[in-house]
């Protein structure tokens, strides 16, 4: 019926023309008459008691209309609900104490941002500085400074999760590997920072917020509650275009409360566009983590079980949806491997650093860095090839759908097939031979592998894993689960088609994808379809899981769109059959029109049907609802609440990534040069390969940031050392390696089109594959990578300490004659 296919076509993005010519509509572009501007006063101390405020000088400055302080926040708002039982009181500003550098303590509103910043300097806050702690392990020492006296400890949450019989697995193991890892605190640094405009209408008592917020919209009711507003009195509107987010714009909800309160207090429309320094100091990042890992195996390489012990550093407060840093990948803790026995001890620790939250790959970059390093260490210990060890343990292709011991339901996959494809593309055996030659010549060439199960569409239910089963068993506890999305497709009176969604695209190209799907289902071309996806909580159909995060659009948004288009098609067929006086089963939708299956008689295109259905409702068959439109709400049946054994299908669809990377390390400078990088993805049905490729490039570069460059650093007093792009190093196009991409396709049985998300992609694998490749390169001198990012200065020191190579100069030449490589960290001459 829909053989005129637009699915899988490399349709160029309809968004690009406006974005590339400066005609996008971002938050800062919205016309806001009479808006005043906010400047936020932030704590210069990592840890300090706030004794008082003096705002008189600021208020006296011409152009200033108001100042809101932590005292106002404490009096007029509630603290945010946190996902744990610890009594952490997290308000939208500091109230009793400041707990990280950059924490908001007051807001000044003035006629322009310049004046607001001048006045912000005049706000006097009386601080009593306190000792700070920044290291998550140190923060748990008995004598460490305690951030939250009411909690009494810096441990915000602690869970021990046991699956299978890990003690027995370790008792029976022939080989046990133990290692400690550190993963850095990294962010996303979207080109567009946070932005919020708030307007309070005292007559209707409606607070309207415009924000480049990405969801999930569970944050809407949480924020309305903080402000004491009924949900239907807080209207949240997301502009058409968002300049990137990568998870980070989930965590802007405290600012929505703060700017909302400021508008309600001052009575003026308040606009706040976060600047880059604010963003680097105090927006959001992933956690820095210390991990202790253990792996039990047999001598033949069979993995029997693992133990994870994690210390995740969430900064000064645990902010929702943390501790997702520990539990978001719960269903795929075991990755692509078959082992059944696992113990996870997850500690969520508060220290005097900025706060954390979802960041592209949410906790999966951490997970696979540790796991894939452990698999390589096992291979090294057993003298096996890392490929052989992995193949020994992969989930078999005929095992899908596969239930993991932690409750994940891997919907489809061909892990061995994808892995083989990556090895073929990298010419793995040849690469090993070239490596042997290079080593013989004294060069440090290494080959890394990383495999990852790529989860998409979070099941909101995973968050409850933070609570222990006894708590969840209480009758007053309300279980949580779900992932849904709605779409409407409508035909206007002249036969034009519009699709409406409540998603919040940040560059993912939803308009393009939706136009392809609707065109595909209705026999149109994508150009014929107008797509509107500006989220508005007053007009769109939404629920707590709505939003564009956890790579969900590729699974759930596409499914809702296809279902809505099909529902509309069914209605059009029914109407057409009525007009043709034929039974419905004797007509069909073919080439954009209702036609008799017999091929005889009239046919009715969408335009024909619109011309009658809208203008002459009498022509509609009896019992049919007037109006040529359909709305579908798609949700996953496999999204269940966490069970009493802490098992949960934490995501809904699961793709796969297999990567091979070859690197050369310059032992004299510690520079890492990427010689070859192959990445193979299985995201089920691909709707638009161009968009998919863009996501893979972006994910890989983002992952490379965590592997080689990015690191939000603090000194022992909690001062942030990386608050500018001079010091927080984000890889640019110049640092990008050549990326060889291929796909295999195992369509999901759960989604309407068989597609899965893949927006996070290389952020999950690149830290692992780089660490494995560099460790392999330096294996001859026993230097292994257990910490990221790999800073050349630190790596050189380790090479030097390891006795290093002789310091004789060598002529560098590239590995693999066919490939041009880029001298990654060195500037071209």
């Amino acid at each position, binding site marked *: 019926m829909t053989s005129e296919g637009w699915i899988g076509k490399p349709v160029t993005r309809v968004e690009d023309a406006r974005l590339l010519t400066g005609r996008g509509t971002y938050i800062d572009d919205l016309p806001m008459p009479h808006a005043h501007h906010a400047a936020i006063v932030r704590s210069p101390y990592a840890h300090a008691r706030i004794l008082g405020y003096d705002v008189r000088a600021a208020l006296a400055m011409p152009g200033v209309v108001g100042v809101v302080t932590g005292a106002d926040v404490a009096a007029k708002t509630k603290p945010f609900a946190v996902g744990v039982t610890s009594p952490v009181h997290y308000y939208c500003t500091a109230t009793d104490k400041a707990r990280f550098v950059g924490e908001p303590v007051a807001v000044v509103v003035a006629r322009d941002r310049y004046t607001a910043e001048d006045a912000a*300097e005049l706000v006097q806050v009386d601080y009593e500085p306190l000792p700070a702690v920044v290291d998550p392990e140190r923060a748990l020492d008995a004598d460490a400074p305690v951030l939250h006296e009411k909690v009494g400890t810096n441990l915000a949450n602690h869970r021990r999760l046991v699956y299978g019989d890990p003690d027995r697995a370790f008792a029976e193991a022939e080989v046990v590997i133990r290692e400690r890892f550190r993963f850095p605190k990294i962010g996303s640094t979207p080109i567009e920072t946070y932005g919020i405009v708030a307007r309070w209408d005292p007559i209707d008592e409606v607070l309207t917020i415009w924000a480049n917020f990405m969801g999930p919209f569970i944050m809407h009711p949480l924020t309305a509650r903080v402000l004491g507003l009924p949900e239907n009195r807080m209207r949240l509107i997301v502009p058409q275009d968002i300049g990137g987010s990568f998870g980070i714009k989930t965590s802007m909800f405290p600012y929505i409360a703060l700017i909302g309160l400021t508008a309600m207090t001052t009575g003026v429309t308040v606009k706040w566009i976060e600047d880059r320094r604010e963003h680097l100091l105090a927006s959001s990042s992933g956690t820095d983590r210390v991990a202790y890992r253990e792996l039990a195996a047999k001598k033949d390489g069979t993995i029997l079980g693992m133990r994870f012990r994690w210390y995740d550093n969430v900064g000064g407060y645990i902010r929702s949806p943390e501790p997702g840093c520990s539990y978001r990948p719960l269903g795929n803790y075991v990755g692509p491997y078959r082992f059944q026995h696992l113990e996870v001890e997850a500690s969520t620790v508060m220290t005097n650093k900025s706060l954390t939250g979802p960041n592209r790959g949410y906790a999966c970059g951490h997970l696979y860095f540790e796991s894939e390093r452990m698999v390589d260490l096992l291979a090294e210990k057993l003298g096996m090839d890392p490929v052989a060890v992995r193949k020994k343990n992969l989930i078999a292709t005929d095992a899908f759908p596969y239930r993991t011991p932690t409750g994940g339901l891997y919907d489809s996959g061909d892990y061995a097939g994808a892995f083989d494809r990556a090895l073929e593309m990298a010419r793995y055996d040849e690469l090993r031979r070239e490596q042997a030659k290079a080593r013989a010549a004294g060069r440090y060439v290494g080959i890394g592998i990383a495999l990852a199960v790529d989860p998409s569409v979070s099941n909101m239910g995973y968050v409850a894993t933070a609570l222990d089963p006894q708590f969840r068993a209480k009758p007053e506890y309300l279980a949580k689960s779900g992932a849904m999305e709605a779409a409407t497709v409508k035909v206007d009176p002249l036969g034009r088609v519009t699709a409406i969604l409540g998603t919040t695209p940040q560059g993912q190209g939803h308009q393009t994808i939706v136009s392809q799907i609707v065109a595909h289902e209705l026999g149109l071309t994508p150009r014929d379809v107008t797509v509107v996806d500006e989220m508005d909580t007053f007009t769109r159909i939404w629920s707590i899981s709505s939003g564009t995060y956890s790579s969900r659009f590729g699974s759930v948004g596409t499914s809702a769109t296809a279902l809505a288009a099909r529902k509309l098609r069914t209605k059009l067929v029914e109407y057409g059959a009525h007009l043709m006086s034929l039974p419905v089963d004797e007509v069909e939708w073919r080439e954009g029109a209702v036609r008799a299956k017999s091929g005889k008689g009239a046919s009715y295109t969408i335009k024909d049907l619109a011309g009658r259905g809208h203008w002459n409702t009498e022509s509609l068959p009896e019992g049919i609802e007037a109006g040529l439109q359909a709305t579908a709400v798609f949700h996953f049946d496999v999204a269940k609440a966490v069970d009493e054994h802490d098992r949960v299908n934490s995501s809904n669809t699961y793709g796969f990534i297999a990567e091979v990377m070859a690197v050369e390390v310059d032992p004299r400078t510690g520079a890492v040069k990427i010689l070859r990088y192959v990445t193979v993805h299985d995201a089920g049905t691909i709707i638009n390969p161009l968009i998919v490729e863009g996501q893979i490039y972006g994910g890989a570069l983002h992952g490379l940031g965590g592997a080689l460059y990015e690191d939000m650093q603090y000194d022992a007093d909690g001062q942030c050392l990386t608050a500018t792009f001079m010091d927080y190093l984000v890889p640019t196009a110049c640092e990008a390696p050549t990326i060889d991409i291929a796909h295999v396709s195992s369509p999901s049985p759960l989604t309407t089109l068989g597609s899965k998300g893949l927006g996070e992609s290389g952020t999950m694998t690149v830290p692992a594959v780089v660490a494995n490749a560099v460790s392999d390169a330096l294996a001859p001198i026993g230097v292994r990578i257990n910490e990221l990012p790999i800073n050349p*200065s630190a790596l050189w020191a380790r090479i030097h300490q390891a006795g290093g190579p002789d310091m004789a*100069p060598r002529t560098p030449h590239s590995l693999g004659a066919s490939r041009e490589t880029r001298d990654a960290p060195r500037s071209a001459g």
Partner: protein
Amino acid sequence: MKPPKFDYHAPTTVDEAITLLSRYGDDAKLLAGGQSLMPLLNFRLARPAALIDLNRVEGLAGIREVDGQVRFGAMTRQRAIEFSPVVARRLPLLVEATKLVGHLPIRSRGTIGGSIAHADPAAEYPAVLAALDGEVVVRGPRGERVVKPADFFQTYLTTTLGRDEVLTEVRLPAMDGKAGWAFEEFSRRHGDFALVGIAAIVAGDGARCTMARLATAGAGPVPVRLRAAERILESQGLGDAAIEAAAARAAEIVEPDSDLHASAAYRKNLTRVLTERAVRRAVTRLGGR
């Protein structure tokens, strides 16, 4: 990130600029390409009472060849230097160094005078000025003076430029057409300030070295001429052993600091490695280009 209030002046002559500087005493900043000053203003790390914009001063930009020197008006953009035929012919080291300055948009605005007057220890131009032993021309109320690099750079971001003086010209001696040159630097990303950079010029024939000039960027508070290392090359020649000895000596001379990105020991190591690499590459260019 909005600057505090400041007065803005756009003089059209150097004398006018000097008058304004004198009027504001210590409290004015000259605006050239703005690639360092504007961020400092926006971060409120610099809070001058006035900005004196040199962009409309007549005759302050341009490249001339005079008496064996190439003279650069202080407001000459880095991008103009990158593509100047005169510079390509007479100062190929400067072309190579220019390509390492930031990124294209930075070079399109950034100026040679601004870079040298700002005196960032990791910048390329101060190292080239030191290696070529050029001079800067400075004009103030008491007239003009010509200053050698050793008398100009004092410490981080600090020069002997008086508060009422304007750097008007940079003079670099044309390189010997038979000399070899290289600018080697190591930075974590393309376009970043160098962790260490080495400018090298060598002249000679066969293994004999008649002249060596080596200078650093990023290996201490000011660019350093590596004279002891130069002397090793000049006395021992350009063979492998001499180059390695000179590089080892270079690492001993410098006194770098540790920061977020690199330890002092690593910077010393880079000084050695990059000196070696720069000299080797310079040697391959000996005898004309």
